């Protein structure tokens, strides 16, 4: 088989001091007015990291409060604001943009062999829209907060809450357009700007995942936008289409809200699933098992995710017949996710596995995502959901997927591509240590929540019966460990940007067009657009000793 004809790039040295996208121009204006997708990725990285720690601070306050059954820290009204803002910030301002806006922005053009995204100025606009939405939400946070839950259900949010519903709703509404434009940019780029020879089935699976994510962003986000807009109008006008006084149905809000917000959870996990395929292949030195299955499973998730939203409404007055339909479809959506887990496991089998930090995150992901996913099946089943809905079981379920899954995949991806992004290597010892601390802290925080949820402790409550205290304290202890675990990478990653050893173009010996460029890459990514002739993940077969491809 032929080897890839990828043009040798002029700069072979590993010095990050060459002209690259980081030092090509200086000054704050060159960053705030950049159209370079790599710089925009870093703009996003800074803002979402900030929002992550703001949202995390609310979580810390909640877990401190819950050390005592009668609440240890804040008034119940304040507690309601804490869980609401934790949810709003973590979902809309951290998880949804996290991988797509940072790793996606940085890598999509490089992985498809393009110089930039299709619409670079639109990309910058996306970041500004995100920033403006975040500012509105932070303003609302410091001027009273909001206590409706991140789900904003009327009539409480439209009529009875005395908090800053409109500013937060506005912030979320605005930020939604950031998501839409990013998704639009990715879809057009992937369709129209792939390098010659880069057919769909030669694309890295990360691109398939980003493409599927973008489809969800494009089709779903506008619906939550109009829904939140209608909610804001109802609050301002004191009348609206969810108002029972004039024949409106508050459950209709829930339909429209969850039509987006369920697929949104797939926006949050799909990119992580894409990162996983990259990590598992590189650190087992093996081709992915079942490439087309993994690719198609991403698309299947994107489509089926839009058919299941009613499982959030089994107990809110939804017709039991609709509940039946949604329950069956919810079981269906688990299948493509399971397919991926099987395929990664099969990839690991007889692979040549190494345990650097990105791989530790990936291995942790497989276990924790599987647990989170399986517990979703209990919730998809109507009868068990009646018991588990509104309890900590749900909280544990989605945190296993979002934190044990998405955040760990995000960290794994950040660590994997860090040398490419910054041209520096971080200290692997500290990185592995932090990964283990996070893994332990995470499980200690959230596993007890499955138990107390099953035993009946409701979520979103500032107080609880004393028999749940031991498990709550355990969970809070875990949260403090988890918090420390997240601070460690913050420190060594920032340290490495200045003091880390220079990384070469491909420190992991990974396959992919992005690894064929210097670290950090030049502004235009490629001197000449590469021509691709080999399949993705063309790692040497570990047992034959013969380099394939």
């Amino acid at each position, binding site marked *: 088989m032929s080897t890839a004809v990828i043009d040798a790039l002029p700069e072979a040295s590993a010095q990050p001091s060459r002209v690259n996208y980081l030092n090509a121009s200086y000054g704050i204006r060159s960053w705030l007015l950049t159209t370079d997708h790599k710089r925009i990725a870093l703009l996003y990285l800074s803002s979402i990291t900030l929002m992550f720690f703001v949202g995390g601070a609310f979580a810390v306050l909640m877990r401190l409060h819950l050390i005592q059954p009668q609440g240890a820290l804040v008034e119940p009204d304040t507690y309601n604001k804490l869980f609401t803002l934790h949810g709003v910030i973590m979902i809309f301002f951290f998880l949804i943009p996290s991988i797509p806006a940072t790793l996606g922005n940085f890598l999509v053009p490089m992985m498809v062999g393009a110089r930039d995204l299709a619409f670079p100025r639109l990309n910058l606009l996306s970041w500004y829209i995100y920033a403006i939405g975040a500012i509105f939400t932070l303003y609302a946070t410091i001027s009273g907060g909001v206590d409706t839950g991140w789900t904003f259900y009327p009539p409480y949010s439209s009529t009875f809450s005395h908090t800053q519903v409109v500013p937060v709703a506005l912030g979320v509404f605005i930020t939604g357009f950031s998501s839409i434009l990013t998704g639009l940019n990715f879809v057009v780029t992937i369709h129209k700007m792939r390098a010659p020879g880069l057919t769909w089935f030669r694309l890295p699976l990360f691109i398939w995942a980003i493409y599927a994510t973008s489809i969800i962003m494009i089709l779903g986000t506008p619906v939550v936008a*109009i829904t939140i807009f209608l909610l804001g109008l109802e609050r301002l006008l004191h009348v609206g289409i969810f108002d029972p006084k*004039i024949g409106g149905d508050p459950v*209709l809000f829930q339909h*429209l809200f969850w039509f987006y917000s369920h697929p949104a959870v797939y926006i949050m996990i799909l990119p992580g699933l894409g990162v996983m395929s990259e990590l598992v292949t590189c650190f087992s030195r093996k081709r992915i098992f079942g490439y087309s299955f993994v690719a198609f499973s991403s698309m299947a998730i994107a489509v089926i995710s839009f058919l299941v939203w009613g499982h959030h409404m089994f107990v809110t007055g939804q017709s039991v017949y609709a509940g039946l339909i949604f329950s069956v479809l919810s079981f269906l959506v688990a299948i493509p996710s399971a397919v991926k887990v099987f395929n990664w496991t099969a990839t690991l089998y007889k692979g040549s596995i190494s345990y650097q930090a990105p791989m530790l995150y990936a291995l942790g992901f497989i276990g924790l995502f599987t647990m989170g996913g399986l517990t979703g099946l209990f919730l998809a089943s109507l009868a068990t959901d009646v018991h588990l809905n509104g309890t900590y079981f749900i909280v544990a379920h989605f945190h296993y997927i979002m934190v044990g899954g998405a955040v760990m995949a995000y960290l794994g991806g950040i660590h994997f591509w860090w040398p490419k992004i910054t041209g520096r290597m971080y200290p692997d010892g500290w990185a592995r240590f932090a990964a283990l601390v996070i893994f332990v802290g995470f499980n200690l925080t959230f596993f007890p929540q499955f138990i107390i949820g099953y035993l009946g402790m409701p979520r979103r409550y500032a107080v609880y019966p004393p028999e749940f205290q031991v498990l709550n304290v355990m969970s809070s202890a875990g949260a403090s460990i988890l918090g420390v675990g997240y601070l460690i990478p913050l420190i060594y990653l920032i340290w490495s940007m200045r003091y880390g050893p220079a990384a070469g173009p491909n420190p992991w010996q990974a396959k992919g067009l992005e690894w064929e460029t210097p670290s950090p890459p030049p502004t235009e990514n490629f001197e000449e657009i590469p021509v691709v002739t080999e399949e993705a993940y063309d790692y040497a077969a570990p047992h034959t000793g013969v380099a394939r491809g």
Partner: protein
Amino acid sequence: MADLAAHGVHPPGFAHQFEDMEQQRDAGSLGMWVFLVTEIMFFGGLFASYIIYRALDLRAFETGSRLLDIRFGAANTAVLIGSSLTMALAIRSAQVGKPKSQIIFYLIMTMILGALFLGLKFTFEWRHDYVEHLVPGFGFAYKGPFAHGVELFFCFYFFMTGLHALHMIVGLGILTVLTIMASRGRFTEQYYAPLEISGLYWHFVDIVWIFLFPLLYLIGGRYVLGGN
């Protein structure tokens, strides 16, 4: 693939992340179509809600619909269809290399028709509705049958036509920019993508109205009332 060192090869308006003008045009067009799909879903939330409430309370919606002035609705429909024609002709003028004065003429005609639409809607329809106390949130006071459902209907009427009008205003802004660009001779037979892409947006706004007209104005059964 093409080496982009020779800038003179590419026409003005070429963006360097692309390989050639054809890729740029394809990308721009696909981008606008994808954006229109997001708009379908954005308006779609309102249309879906409308469909649901109409199914649940048909009589109230019919009553509300009869309170709208069908003549304005029909006239506005004709005005928007006309503006779509002039927009299509503006694009065509650029495509066949007509002088910029012709492009500008059609763009301005489109803007006049768009402004006429908004004028009819705001100064006649909406003002009349306000005077008749039919605006929810602003002194709604309808005393006939199905009063609550009629108020719900008018929520939809104002939200949907309001959102549509907002999109028209944005469209007028875009047309203004296009007119300025045209007056500077920016559009040629090779480069007219901004016209084409903006045309797609304008036609989409027209299509939304094509559905709003029957759904809001024509469902009330304007035939002789008898025994409803």
